[in-house]
């Protein structure tokens, strides 16, 4: 067998920033993975040192398009920790609502794309269709489908009007049966089980060593969640539970994400109860940031988002360190990809949910010796989808049950 390097990237929609992965393959098996980052390093930590404290809230929102409220929440937590400020109760509930709505849309986005990679385009269309109403709520509350600009140091920038509350409730109520159907369809499906169970396994030990976070850690039985362990905003004031699974494979990660959507809805509903019919401050003035240092973290859809700020008492931070969850989650590929086949790598890489913010895949396989192209992006998805078809045949499930004819034709 010839040894082949399969480069993924540098510009690749699997990751929130363009990144480069080299898969060293022996035939179909992956024997090593190499990661080089920085293709989209925008120097936000450096830019931050030249901005005013209040401007940075909007700057950090631009780090990621999908979890765009997680960074501002973590940053505000850090500055509020530095200045020892307690935000008003109403602002706490509003922060939670925005954060959890974002979690639902982010998880549904992942489920849809995972479905597409596996050749279940019905799942893709369902999930993305059900995600739309969540974005509609966001637009109604904040004026934008993404980049909500809701957070500020000391509270939130906009109130949630009482008139919106019944509308939000109705949308969530309508979403529940659909999400239930989607969850059951995914969990009960024998082909998905055959395709995802036992694939890309990360043990509890791997998670601890790499410091992996969020659904990836919880799917491997590590019971960590910043929302519960370090309750900020209103997470300590509402009832909900942390979802964990013990298997550590891609299937477990899907289960964690789907079930978390229901917990998020629970949190949102309780927060709405606490907002309805009440009036109150939504923010307090934080004029001067005293010298000192502060740490804030927040459980983003992908895991803990960490911000460290240091002030010398002037208008901008002396140092602002940002650690996004994917920084810790991506190196786990060293443990999860090795020994797997190329057709499974697509879903394993997708399994940790590095933000998808582009629309194209740029994945090409070259022969090491001749530099001749062997496979490109669509081939990888095709390989993955073909494997699903093969499993379907083996266990006797008719593909038509899932596949919609138009999609079959288009792809």
């Amino acid at each position: 067998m010839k040894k082949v390097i399969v480069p993924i990237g540098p510009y690749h929609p699997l990751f929130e920033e363009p990144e480069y992965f080299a898969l060293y393959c022996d035939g179909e098996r992956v024997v090593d993975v190499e990661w080089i980052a920085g293709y989209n390093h925008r120097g936000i930590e450096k830019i931050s040192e030249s901005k005013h404290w209040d401007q940075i809230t909007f700057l950090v929102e631009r780090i990621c398009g999908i979890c765009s409220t997680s960074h501002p929440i973590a940053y505000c937590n850090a500055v509020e920790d530095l200045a020892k400020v307690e935000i008003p109760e109403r602002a706490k509930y509003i922060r939670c609502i925005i954060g959890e709505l974002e979690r639902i849309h982010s998880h549904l986005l992942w489920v849809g794309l995972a479905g597409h990679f596996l050749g279940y385009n019905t799942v893709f269309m369902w999930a993305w269709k059900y995600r739309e109403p969540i974005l509609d709520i966001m637009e109604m509350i904040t004026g934008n489908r993404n980049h909500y600009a809701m957070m500020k140091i000391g509270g939130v920038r906009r109130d949630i009007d009482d008139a919106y509350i019944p509308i939000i409730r109705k949308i969530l109520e309508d979403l529940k049966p659909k999400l239930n159907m989607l969850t059951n369809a995914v969990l009960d499906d024998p082909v998905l089980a055959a395709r995802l169970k036992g694939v890309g396994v990360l043990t509890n030990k791997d998670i601890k060593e790499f410091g992996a976070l969020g659904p990836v850690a919880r799917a491997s039985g590590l019971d960590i969640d910043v929302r519960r362990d370090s309750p900020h905003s209103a997470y300590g004031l509402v009832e909900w539970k942390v979802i964990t699974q013990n298997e550590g494979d891609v299937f477990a990660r899907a289960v964690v994400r789907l079930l978390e959507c229901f917990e998020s809805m629970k949190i949102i509903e309780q927060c709405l109860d606490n907002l309805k019919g009440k009036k109150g401050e939504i923010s307090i003035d934080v004029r001067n940031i005293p010298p000192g240092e502060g740490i804030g973290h927040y459980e983003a859809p992908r895991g803990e988002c960490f911000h460290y700020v240091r002030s010398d008492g002037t208008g901008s931070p002396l140092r602002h360190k940002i650690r996004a969850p994917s920084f810790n989650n991506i190196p786990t590929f060293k443990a999860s990809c090795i020994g797997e086949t190329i057709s499974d790598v697509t879903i394993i890489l997708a399994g940790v949910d590095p933000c998808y913010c582009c629309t194209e895949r740029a994945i090409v396989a070259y022969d090491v010796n001749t530099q001749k192209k062997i496979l490109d992006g669509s081939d990888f998805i095709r390989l993955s989808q073909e494997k699903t078809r093969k499993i379907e045949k083996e266990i006797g499930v008719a593909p038509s049950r899932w596949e919609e004819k138009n999609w079959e034709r288009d792809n």
Partner: protein
Amino acid sequence: MDTLETIKKRFSDRIKNIKIHSDIRIYIEIDKKDLLDFAKFIFNDMDARFITATGVDNLDSMEVLYHFSIDREDVIVSLRVLLDREDPVIESLTPVVKGALNIEKEMYELLGIKFLNHPELKRFLLTEEYPEGVFPLRKDSQKGKK
């Protein structure tokens, strides 16, 4: 405050300075030669989670903060190490905590802090064309631009 007491009990004479910002945020300043002992104790014996490390250019010194979270007690312990700015060298944490691999690479190229016994200390974020010996996150990097 169990966390702080445990660390104090184990390393009473090796702590240089303790700053208690609040019940849940503790900063412990230590000497650079003690880093691995502290990290091993906090990461392995106290079962903490390694969050990340922060490199700070103080102009008169180079500072590295190693953040550990003890999730069950909701405490973040940050180990603070001050290094000589002209020659910032410190033992790598990667042999103890695998998750420190990439953040150390990042500090190496953005701040110029060298990590001894690091398995692959090479370019990670900057392009190959970027000049050697110029560290963009240092406070004087504008002046030092070649």
